[in-house]
Each structure stands twice: as C-alpha cells, then as structure tokens.
C-alpha cells in the first residue's frame, strides 16, 4: 500500500479525480468470482472431416498469407489435398457453423488451392530418411495405401507398395474421370508422396497371383492391405451377361486409360452412386443420350450432390423408382430392357427407404448400351487364409485398421465397403500411426471427447453476411467437348476472400478483441498468444462476450 498523500493546499490537487499514487499495489483481481481462460475448442468442420484435417488452422494460416504452413497443416492429416480438394464429398461443409449464418465456407476450394500450391513448391516437403529398420508392406496403391505409405515413410520406416495395375492411384486413376481429377495432376500428387520418404514401388504385382499375404506377413514387420473394391457387383438380372451390357467401372477404366469410346446413341446407366454419375457424364462426352435409372428417388441417391447437379446440367436424364428386370437382345445389336417400377417401402439398415416392386408395373427401353453401376465388391479369394473376412470385406477391430492378425492391418473400401477417398486416406493414416506405435512400443494416446461449438457460441455481430466464393467454371458446352476440369482453382484473391469468411470456431485467430476490450488492461498480448493477468482481471467477462468465436471459457473461482 502506498503512503497517504496530504495536500497542503487545494492547488496541489489534480484537475480531475485521479489517484496520485501508482495503483498497481491494488490487486483488483481479488474481486473476481469468475475466471476467464483461453480454452480452444475443436472446430465443427474438423469433427466433420473423416481425416480430421485441421481446417480452421490452415484457413487461418492462409489468411495470414503463410501458405507453406497452411499446406503443412493439411499434410499432417492428408497427404493429397489437391485430390480431396477436387473429389471429396466435403462433409466438413455440412458441419460448418457459417452454414447456420449464411453459407458454409467453400472448404474444398480452399483445400484445393493450398494443395496445388504444395505441388508447385516441392521444397515445402522435406524428404524423410529411413531411420527405422522395420520394413513395411503396403498392398494397394490407392488413396488408403498411398496415405499409409506416406505417414510410415515420414516416420522413417522403409515402405514397399505393391500395386496390381501399371501405375499408382487406384480408383483415383481408374475410377474418377479426368474432368474431376486430371491424370497429370494425379501423377504429380503420387510423385510428391513417393518423394517424401523411403518408399519403393512394385507395380504390376497383384495380391493373390503375384504375391501372397501370408508370405508378406512373414517377410515384413507389418502389412497394410488397402486393395479397395475391384469387382463390379452383378445385378442378378436375366441377360445381363453379354454384348450391349458393360460394368460401369470397366467403362471408366477404358475412358481414363485414354481409349476413344463409343457407347452408341442411347445409353442407360443403372445405379445412383458416384460411379453412375461418372459413367453417365463420360457417356455424354462421347456423344450419347444418357438416362440414369435408379431404383429409389433422388433423395436417396448416394452420389455427391454436386455431381448429380453437374450431370443434370450436362443433359443426363434421370428416371427414378425403376430397376431392370430382364435384358434381351434383338438382331440390331441393341438391348431391350424391361424395367420393374418400384415404390419406397420401410427404411432399411442404412436409414433409406427400401425400394419394393410397385405391383406388376413395368416399362421397356431399347438402348445401344446398358452400364451397371450398382456398386463394387472385394476379391476375397486374393487374401488366402491370412485374414478373416466378412463377405468380400476384411474384418477389422478397433479404430486403427487392426485385423485379427497382429501384423496385418487393413483400411479403405476393402474394410468399409464402397466409401470415399477421404475415409480411405484417414484409414491409411490411422493404420500407419498404429503400426508406428506398435513397432516403437509406444502407448496408445488417451481418447479425449472433443469439445466444439455451434452458431449460438459465435458473436455474429462481428461478421457481415457474405456469400460463398465460387471458383470460375467452364460452360456446359465446353465441358461436354472433352475432359477439361469443370472448375478452375481459386487464385490468391478468391482464396483471400473465402478464407476471410471463416469464423475460426472456438480457436483464437488473434483478432485482438479481448486485448482491446478488457477494461482493466488485464489481457497481455504476447508474440503468439494472449495471457490473462489475474492480478487485475476482475472477472467482468467482457472478453468472453466480445470474443467472436468462443475461444475463452470461464470457471467459478474456488471450484
């Protein structure tokens, strides 16, 4: 406590009411009954991402112009943002808080822009040296296998990838048309992964014929199986084997291999998933009139909504609530398909209403070509007896792709059934991390229940309404002329505009509000963080209210 000051005359008084003494002795923090503290949450977008990409963080880094760190932040969870930025079904956007304010952030476009910068700046990645002696086998060079290999190699494990086809990429290469994912770009992505560490590649080496799983299990310290689903599912319809009927995936393989295809004037595609959309749009590009026939309605279609929309724009017709019943062939080389009309019944195990025949109503179509795209399945025979299977899928236990065999891990479509690129990438990474912990005998990290926020926790007074930024696109006519990508990437201006929309949910982005608004100057601004000075924080919680993004929490004192 300072000394008492006695004025000898009123002339010594200050002009206004103020203390003459320094007031720092007065620890006004003792008045506080509630304490604010910095407490960062997990943004909902990250929780929505199967690969758990730190979306808030890379968007924040991009707003700061630090694209290298932004790219590295993505690479922590996903080695191929250029791919997912183009083909992912972006469940992150479904969770985006901004969706409940105006429109979700265009996360895939941001991811793609930053991912492409990574490809343009190969120096951003440091090649890892082989520091571990345990060799790992990765079977399958699709997204799951590439992801697993990348994270193991980064950790210093020598990895060998066994790939049945002549080139790496799996479904990315053979299943996804070039207008969604150009081959040239995929080559660069694969190259960037292979250059990241000690990875050896054996192409043209198929599991079951060229190598056997039980042999690899003996030779390698661990084996990751990520072979995907290679077989198109049969419809089980009389007449489906024969000319005029082709598996959609086979057609895509030919198209992606550069073959000039001519499916004929009229084409029907049976199915409602992404393969069906890809087949339909490729057939449109070959000049065919295309009708997609799906046994349920548009609401139940598993295809990515954007892909359905683009297919419609490109003139693909849709016929819902119908399934092929019989296929016959006349002399003209065309196929005659009788369709059973369907109606929706009770929900099935997927929650979607099950299609059931609508009495004996049928209709007939005569087409040049029918493509089946009703799903794919695994090749159970190729595993031998080395793993336990569940139908044509590999059975796993736990969240990290552990099979019932200690050294064998699996992930991607061969475990989940037909799923997504990002889920395969996530599975590959998780298995790699688990393998690393197993080989280095590290304990499993404790699982924490993530805390997140929602729109109620955002101080929307700080955000103007702003529509989602869309990248430039080519016209439908130009799209149908070939296999050019539909959308261009964001340039830096568009990237800046879109990243500026991010709320940065639950995570500080150094907006200075707490520092500016604290009436007691009890927020200290350090180089890379803020700090409360509890000697003087009175617990007024103005900082909590003015933090636009709920990065500050409170707790009662003495509890």
């Amino acid at each position: 406590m300072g000394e008492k000051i006695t004025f000898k005359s009123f002339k010594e008084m200050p002009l206004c009411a103020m203390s003459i003494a320094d007031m720092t002795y007065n620890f006004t923090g003792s008045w506080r009954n509630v304490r604010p503290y910095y407490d960062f949450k997990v943004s909902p977008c990250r929780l929505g991402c199967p690969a758990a990409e730190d979306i808030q963080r890379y968007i924040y880094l991009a707003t700061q112009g630090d694209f290298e760190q932004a790219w590295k932040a993505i690479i922590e969870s996903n080695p191929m943002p250029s791919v997912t930025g183009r083909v992912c079904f972006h469940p992150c956007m479904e969770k985006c808080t901004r969706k409940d304010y105006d429109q979700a952030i265009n996360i895939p476009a941001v991811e793609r822009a930053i991912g492409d910068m990574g490809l343009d700046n190969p120096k951003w990645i440091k090649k890892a040296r082989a520091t571990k002696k345990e060799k790992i086998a990765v079977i399958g060079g699709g997204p799951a296998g590439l992801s697993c290999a990348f994270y193991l190699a980064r950790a210093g494990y020598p990895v060998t990838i066994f790939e049945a086809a002549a080139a790496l990429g799996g479904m990315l290469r053979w299943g996804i048309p070039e207008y969604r994912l150009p081959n040239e770009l995929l080559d660069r992505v694969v190259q960037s992964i292979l250059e990241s560490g000690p990875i050896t590649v054996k192409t043209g080496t198929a599991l079951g014929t060229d190598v056997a799983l039980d042999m690899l299990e003996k030779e390698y310290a661990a084996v990751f199986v990520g072979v995907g689903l290679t077989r198109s599912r049969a419809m089980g319809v009389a007449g489906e084997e024969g000319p005029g009927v082709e598996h959609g995936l086979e057609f895509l393989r030919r198209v992606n291999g550069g073959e000039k295809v001519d499916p004929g004037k009229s084409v029907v595609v049976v199915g409602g998933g992404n393969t069906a959309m890809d087949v339909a749009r490729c057939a449109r590009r070959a000049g065919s009139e295309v009708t997609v026939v799906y046994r349920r309605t548009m609401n139940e279609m598993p295809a990515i909504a954007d892909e359905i929309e683009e297919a419609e724009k490109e003139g693909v017709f849709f016929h819902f609530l119908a399934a092929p019943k019989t296929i016959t062939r006349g002399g003209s080389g065309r196929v005659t398909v009788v369709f059973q009309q369907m109606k929706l019944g009770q929900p099935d195990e997927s929650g979607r209403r099950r299609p059931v025949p609508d009495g004996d109503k049928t209709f007939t179509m005569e087409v040049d070509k029918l493509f089946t795209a009703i799903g794919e399945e695994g090749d159970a025979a190729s595993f031998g007896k080395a793993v336990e299977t569940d139908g044509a899928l590999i059975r796993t236990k736990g969240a990290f792709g552990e099979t019932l065999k200690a050294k064998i891990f699996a992930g991607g479509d061969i475990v989940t059934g037909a799923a997504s690129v990002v889920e395969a990438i996530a599975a590959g990474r998780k298995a790699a991390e688990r393998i690393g912990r197993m080989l280095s005998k590290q304990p499993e990290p404790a699982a924490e229940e993530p805390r997140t926020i929602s729109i109620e926790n955002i101080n929307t007074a700080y955000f103007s309404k702003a529509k989602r930024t869309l990248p430039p696109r080519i016209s439908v006519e130009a799209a149908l002329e070939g296999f050019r990508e539909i959308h261009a990437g964001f340039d830096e201006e568009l990237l800046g505009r879109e990243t500026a929309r991010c709320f940065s949910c639950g995570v500080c982005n150094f907006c200075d509000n707490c520092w500016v608004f604290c009436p007691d100057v009890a927020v200290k601004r350090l180089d890379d963080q803020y700090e409360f000075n509890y000697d003087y924080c009175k617990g007024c919680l103005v900082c909590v209210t003015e933090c636009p993004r709920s990065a500050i929490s409170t707790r009662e004192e003495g509890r």
Partner: protein
Amino acid sequence: MKKVIMGNHAVSYGVRASDVKVISAYPITPQTQIVELLSEMCAKGELEAKFIAVESEHSALTACVGASAAGVRTFTATSSQGLLLMHEIIHWAVGARLPIVLVNVNRAVGPPWSIWTDQNDSLSQRDTGWLQLYCESNQETQDTIVQAFKIAESVMLPVMVVLDAFFLSHTFEIVDILEPEQVRPFLPPYKPKNRIDVDDPHAFGNLASPGEYFELRYMIEKAMEASRDVVRDVDREFEQRFGRGYGVVKPYRCDDAEIILVTSGTVASTARAVVDEMRGEGVKIGSLKIRVFRPFPFEEVYQVLSKTKKVAVIDRNISFGHHGIFYQEVKSALYGRTNVPIIGYITGLGGRDVTPRVIRSIAEKAMNDRNAEPDINWIGVKI
C-alpha cells in the same frame, strides 16, 4: 489554397489542419458530411487519425473521452438528437477535464421531426461546462476549429463549435484552406500532464467525497473564467499569424447607434446587411454578434450595449417558461449597470427563414412599438 466548399467541409479541413489523432462519430443530418469527408481523409492517409465508427452518439463521445484520456487530440461532430444523446458524456468530458472539440450543427429538436436549424440543441447544454463558440461563415468555422483545440488544451475544458444547419453547413463559400504544416507552430502537439498509461497506472474517475467534489467543481469554474483571456488571446495570435480574427463579440456600426440588434450565427451577417440598409436611410442602428457564448462575455457586451439607447435581442431559440436564451444572458450582463431598455424577439425556430425583411421588422418594432412586451415577442407566428 482557396477552395469553394460547404460549411461542413470547412469543419473537416479545420480538423485536418489540427493534427487530430482520434475521430469518433455517428452520422446525423445535417452534420454527416463533416465526418464523411474526415473518414475519407483517414482512409486515404491524408489525415493520420484513427476513425472509430460507433453505434450511437453516446458511444462516439465516449470513445473521444477514452482517447482523450489516453492523451491524444480528439474530435467529434453531431447535431440535435445526437447531441442530446451525448448529454451524459458531455458532463463527463468536463469533469474529467478533457480538451475534446465537438462541432454541433444547430438543428431543431424533435418532435415534431425537423432537420432545419435552431439553437435549442446546443443551448440546452449551456450549463455543462463546455465552451461554446458560434460561427457565421465557412472561413470562420474552419479557423475556429483550429482555435478551439488551442483554447481547450490551454484550459483543459472541452469546446463546442456551433454552426447553423444548412444556412452554413450546406452553403458553399470561398475558404482559405489551412494546411497542417502552417498550423503546427500555432497549435503544437497535445501533451497532457496526466493521461491513462498502462506503464504508469493510476485510477481515474474515482469517487470524490464531499470533501473534494466541491473544490473540483470550483476549479472547473476557475478554468472557465481563465478561458476568457485565453479565447481572446488565441484569436489575436491567430489573427497575427493568419490575418483573420473574429473577436469575442463583433460590434458593427455601434459607436453612435441608438439601437443595437444582438445576434448570433448566420443571422449576424443578415443583420449587418439590414444595418447598412437602414443606415443609408439615416437610422442610427448597429449590430452586435456574440461569438463566444460560454464563457459569456459580460464585459464586452456591457461595453458595447451600455452606450446605446435601446437593445433588441434576436433569439433563434426559446427557453420555455422563460425567454429567449441570448436575451436572458444579455439582460444579466447589463443588470444593475445600465437602464437601457432590452427587448427580446423569438424568430426562425425550426429553420424558418430570418430574412432581411424579418430583421428589419424587428428593428422597426423595437424603435417604434411603444406597446412591445420587453421580454418575449414572437415574430412571424401565424396563430
């Protein structure tokens, strides 16, 4: 450099010339163009000031209070309802002894809604401890802003510069623009004795017991008294440096006048034209413009008016239940010192024109109407 600009922009140029560091304002007609131009100047970097946009006038003046307490030169502008919303902080700025300069564009108070001029908004703040300076031309407005900062920082009291809506705010005149480099030797950077400083923490705005509050009020009045000389000296120094001075009051042809019209704001210019016209007809008439309303220039007013035979005070305001406010003030300045008759006239409320004809009718009434009420005569009422 001379420019033809509106009165509002003359304010903006005055602020620019004064090296103001923080401007906070909320738009209101007829003031908006002042802060609009200032915000443009800030955006373009012509004025290195922080422009704080706020959600109300209360916050605008509060932001100025904060910035001024932190030791920088601050400015805000408002009008009518905006000034009234500031009322709480108008008092605060005085008690905290902060040399803020505020421009109020005189606009009638609602309801009924009006955007046109009269003086009731600023005059309703007369007992708060702000100095008040009333302007009649765009040049005077610009120059008064610069003077106001110097006065405010000398006596540590806030200053309100007042101009008429539209008749001045939106009227274009030639203004000799002051540049910051010209003004800097006249108005050096603001260096307060005490300021809020994180590295030297003191408590401000503390509770004052009856043992101190009284003295702090006394010191405000002493500062107000001291400001009489400061206002006069600052104007003189300004005149020496820039060749333009405005005085505390401005008498016109008063030396042998038998009747003097007392005016303020733009009515003063019109009154001078009427004086010239009637002088041409042989009437011994003069006019007195009161430029400084607070502190009220008792002595200057007495010196001019004690020599005449009749005084007519023209008020563009009304203190309901009393009289015109300038009338009250003039009367109190002369009370007990002279027996010259003083007659009060109310006119021009809510922006009604005060034309030469209106002013002439007031002069003629004052000279000839033996039955005139001494205190309150409404000119032009249609009821």
